[in-house]
C-alpha cells in the first residue's frame, strides 16, 4: 500500500471538549443532524430489525421443517410471514441502503453535509417511529375489538382481505400507518440525496466525474419518488376505506380488488430496483478497488443504471399474470420484464471486464462481491423464467417464486451489503474488521444461503404454495424443506459471527488509517472516522479517481478522461 495522502483536519474541538457524560452522548445522537451520524443511526436501526426479521424467518422455517408441524399456531404463522416480509423490506432493506447513502453520498462528492440536514434527521426519526409502530401492534392491536394482534394480511395485503369486515381490530391499521410513515421518511431522504447530488458537489466534480455509487443513488432517489408515492396514495385510500367508509377496494360497492394489486405492484416492482441499485452501487466501488483497475465502461454503467430506472416502471404487472389481463397486457409485461435484463446484463459484463486482467485481492469485501455476481446472475435467470407468462401460470405463488426473490434480496442485495460493511467499516469506525472472522462469516453464509435457497426452488416446482401453514407427509416435500431449514441455521450462525465481528472490531480491530484499501474516491482522503465537517478544505477534483491523481501525479487519470 502506498503512502496515504490525507487532508489534516483542523480539529480544535478535541482540546476544548469536556468529558462526555452518557446523557450527553445520548443527547448528541438524538439531536444530531450530521449525515454520518444519521447514516450510522439508519444502519444500526436496520441491523436491529434485521435480527428481528431473521428470528421471524427462522420460526417460519422451523414450522415448515417437517410435515404436519405445530411449532406455532396458524394465526401466529400468518403474523410471522406478514411481519417478516414487511420488516425486511421497509425496516431493514430501505433504512440500510439509505444509511449507506446518507453516509457515503456527501463525503464521496466532497460535501460537508446533506442539502437539508434537519429534513434528514426528520426522515430518519419518522422511519424509526414507523418501525416501532409496526411492532407495537403486538401489544396494541387488540384494542377495543379484541381481535387480531400483529398484522396478518401478507406483506402485499391484497384487497378485500384488508377490509374492515375481514380484518377487524387494528392490526391492519398498524401495518398501513407504519408503511405510510416509513414512506414519508423514504421520500424525505431520497429528496435529500438527489438534492445533495445535484447541488452540493465540490469544485470540479462534474456529473461525468461522479463516483458511480453517487450516480446510482441519484437514480435510486428519483425512482423512490415515483415508487413510494403510489404506495402512499394506496395506503391513504385503504385508510379512508377502513375508517371513513369509502369504497376504493370494497367489492360490495363495485370497488375493485384488482386496483389494489395494480397500485401495490406499481410500487412493489420498482421497489426491488430501489433496493438492488444500491447493491450495484457498492459493487461499482468495491470491484475496481480489489481488482486494482478502474471500472470498465463508466458511461455504459451510468446509462444502464438510468435505463434500469425507467424500464423498472413498466414491469409491475408481471406479478399479476394469473389475474387475466388478456394477451396484449401479458405480452407487454413479458417483454418489458425481459428487456430489463439487458441493462442488468451490461452491468454484469462490465464488472467481469473490470476483474478481467486485474490483480484480484481476495479480501472479505471482494469475496462477498464475487458471490454477489454469481448469485445475482442466477437470480436474474430465474427471474427471466418467471417472466414467461405461461411458466408463471404454473409457478405463480409457489416456493419457486419465494426462492427467486430471496435469491435477489439475500443472494444479491444482502451479500452486497455485507461487502459494503467490510469495505466501509474502517472508514466509519476507524478500525479494520477481522479478516479471519470475516472469512468464517462468508463461508458460513454462502453455505447456508445455497442450502436454503437452492433447495427452495424444488418444492416450488413440485407445487408447494407460498404462505401455507403446513403440508401433509405424502406430498414428498419433507426432505427438501428440512434441508432448507438446516441452511437457515448456517445463515443464522453466519449473522451471529458477523455481529460478533462488528462489535469485537470496534474495540480491538487494527487501526485503519484514512485509506486502508488504497482506494480512489474522496471518502478515503479524510481521516477515519471523518471529522464532523468531513473536509477541512473542500477538495477540487479533476477526474473520476481524485485519489489516484493525488497518489500518481506523474500519470493522472485526468490525462485520459474526456
Amino acid at each position, binding site marked *: 500500500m502506498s503512502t*496515504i495522502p490525507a487532508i489534516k483536519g483542523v480539529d480544535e474541538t478535541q482540546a476544548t471538549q469536556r468529558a462526555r457524560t452518557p446523557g450527553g452522548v445520548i443527547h448528541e445522537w438524538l439531536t444530531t443532524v450530521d449525515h454520518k451520524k444519521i447514516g450510522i443511526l439508519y444502519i444500526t436501526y436496520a441491523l436491529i430489525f434485521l435480527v428481528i426479521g431473521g428470528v421471524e424467518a427462522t420460526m417460519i422455517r422451523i414450522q415448515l421443517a417437517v410435515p404436519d408441524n405445530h411449532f406455532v399456531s396458524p394465526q401466529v404463522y400468518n403474523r410471522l410471514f406478514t411481519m417478516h416480509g414487511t420488516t425486511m423490506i421497509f425496516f431493514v432493506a430501505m433504512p440500510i441502503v439509505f444509511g449507506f447513502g446518507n453516509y457515503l453520498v456527501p463525503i464521496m462528492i466532497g460535501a460537508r453535509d446533506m442539502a437539508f440536514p434537519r429534513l434528514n434527521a426528520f426522515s430518519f426519526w419518522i422511519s424509526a417511529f414507523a418501525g416501532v409502530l409496526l411492532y407495537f401492534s403486538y401489544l396494541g392491536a387488540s384494542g377495543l375489538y379484541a381481535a387480531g394482534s400483529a398484522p396478518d394480511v401478507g406483506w402485499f395485503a391484497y384487497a378485500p382481505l384488508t377490509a374492515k369486515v375481514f380484518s377487524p381490530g387494528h392490526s391492519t391499521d398498524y401495518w398501513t400507518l407504519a408503511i405510510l410513515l416509513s414512506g414519508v421518511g423514504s421520500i424525505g431522504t431520497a429528496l435529500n440525496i*438527489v*438534492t445533495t447530488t445535484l447541488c452540493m458537489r465540490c469544485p470540479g466534480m462534474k456529473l461525468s466525474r461522479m463516483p458511480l455509487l453517487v450516480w446510482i443513488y441519484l437514480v435510486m432517489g428519483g425512482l423512490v419518488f415515483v415508487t413510494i*408515492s403510489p404506495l402512499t396514495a394506496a395506503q391513504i385510500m385503504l385508510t379512508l376505506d377502513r375508517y371513513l367508509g369509502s369504497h376504493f377496494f370494497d367489492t360490495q360497492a363495485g370497488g375493485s380488488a384488482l386496483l389494489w394489486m395494480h397500485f401495490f405492484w406499481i410500487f412493489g416492482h420498482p421497489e426491488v430496483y430501489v433496493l438492488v441499485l444500491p447493491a450495484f452501487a457498492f459493487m461499482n466501488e468495491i470491484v475496481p478497488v480489489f481488482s486494482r483497475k478502474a471500472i470498465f465502461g463508466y458511461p455504459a454503467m451510468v446509462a444502464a443504471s438510468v435505463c434500469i430506472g425507467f424500464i423498472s416502471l413498466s414491469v409491475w404487472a408481471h406479478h399479476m399474470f394469473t389475474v387475466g389481463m388478456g394477451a396484449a397486457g401479458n405480452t407487454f409485461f413479458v417483454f418489458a420484464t425481459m428487456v430489463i435484463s439487458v441493462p442488468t446484463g451490461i452491468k454484469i459484463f462490465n464488472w467481469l471486464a473490470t476483474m478481467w486482467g486485474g490483480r484480484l485481492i481476495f479480501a472479505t469485501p471482494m469475496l462477498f462481491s464475487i458471490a454477489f455476481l454469481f448469485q445475482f446472475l442466477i437470480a436474474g435467470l430465474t427471474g427471466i423464467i418467471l417472466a414467461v407468462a405461461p411458466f408463471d401460470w404454473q409457478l405463480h405463488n409457489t416456493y419457486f417464486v419465494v426462492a427467486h426473490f430471496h435469491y435477489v434480496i439475500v443472494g444479491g442485495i444482502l451479500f452486497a451489503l455485507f461487502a459494503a460493511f467490510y469495505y466501509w467499516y474502517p472508514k466509519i469506525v476507524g478500525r479494520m474488521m477481522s479478516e479471519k472472522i470475516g472469512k468464517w462469516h462468508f463461508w458460513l453464509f454462502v453455505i447456508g444461503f445455497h442450502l436454503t435457497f437452492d433447495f427452495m426452488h424444488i418444492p416450488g416446482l413440485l407445487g408447494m404454495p407460498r404462505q401455507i401453514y403446513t403440508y401433509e407427509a405424502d406430498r414428498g416435500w419433507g426432505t427438501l424443506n428440512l434441508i432448507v431449514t438446516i441452511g437457515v441455521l448456517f445463515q443464522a450462525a453466519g449473522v451471529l459471527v458477523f455481529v460478533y465481528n462488528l462489535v469485537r472490531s470496534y474495540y480491538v480491530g487494527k487501526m485503519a488509517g484514512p485509506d486502508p484499501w488504497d482506494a480512489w474516491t474522496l471518502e478515503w482522503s479524510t481521516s477515519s472516522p471523518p471529522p464532523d465537517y468531513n473536509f477541512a478544505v473542500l477538495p477540487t477534483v479533476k477526474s473520476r479517481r481524485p485519489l489516484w491523481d*493525488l497518489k500518481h501525479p506523474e500519470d493522472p487519470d485526468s490525462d485520459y478522461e474526456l
Partner: protein
Amino acid sequence: MSSASTLPMQPGAQAPWTQPYRGTVGMACLIIAESAIFIIFIVAYIFYLGKSLTGPTPDQVLEVPIFGTICLLSSSITVHLAVGGLRKVNLRAFTFWLAGTVILGTIFLLSTAQEWYRLIYERGLTLQTNLFGTTYYSLVGLHASHVIVGLIMLSLTLLFALFGRVNEHHIEKFDTLSLYWHFVDGVWVVVFTVVYLVGR
C-alpha cells in the same frame, strides 16, 4: 500518514463553479413525488367513472366551479408578480401581490367548501354514498389539502412581510414557495379537466 498533503485546491482557478439552488431542486423532487400521488388518485377516479352501483352520478350533481377556478389560476399570476416585486426589492409590491395571492387562494377554498356543502346537504353525496363520492371527495380533497398547506405557508410569509421581516435575501426561498403554489395550480388544471370536463 506522514505526507499530510493536499488535494489540489485552487478555488475558482477555472470557470466559476455553480450549481443549482438546493431549494429549487428539493421542491422539484417534492413535486415529482406529489405528482405520483395525484396520478394514482386520478387513475382511481377515471377507473371508477360510471362504475358506481347507485346514484348520484357526476352529471346529475356536479356544477363547473368557474369562479373558484379563475381565482386559483389568477393567484399563480399574482404570486409570480410577488416574486418579481421581491426580486426588484420593491417590498410594497411584494406585500401587495402576496396578499392578493392569499385572498384568491382563500376564495378558491371557500368556493370548494360551498360546493361540498351543497353536495352533502342538498344532494346527499358523501364519501360513503358510492364510488363517485369516494373518488370525488378524495381527489378534490387531496388537492384542497395541498391548497391549505400552501395558504398556510403564504400567510406566514405575508405575516413576516407585514412585520418587515422579509428582504431581498429571501428571494430564493420565496421563489421555492412560489414553485409549490404553481404546482398546486397546475394540479387543479388536471383535476378540473378530469372531474368537471371529461368525467361529467
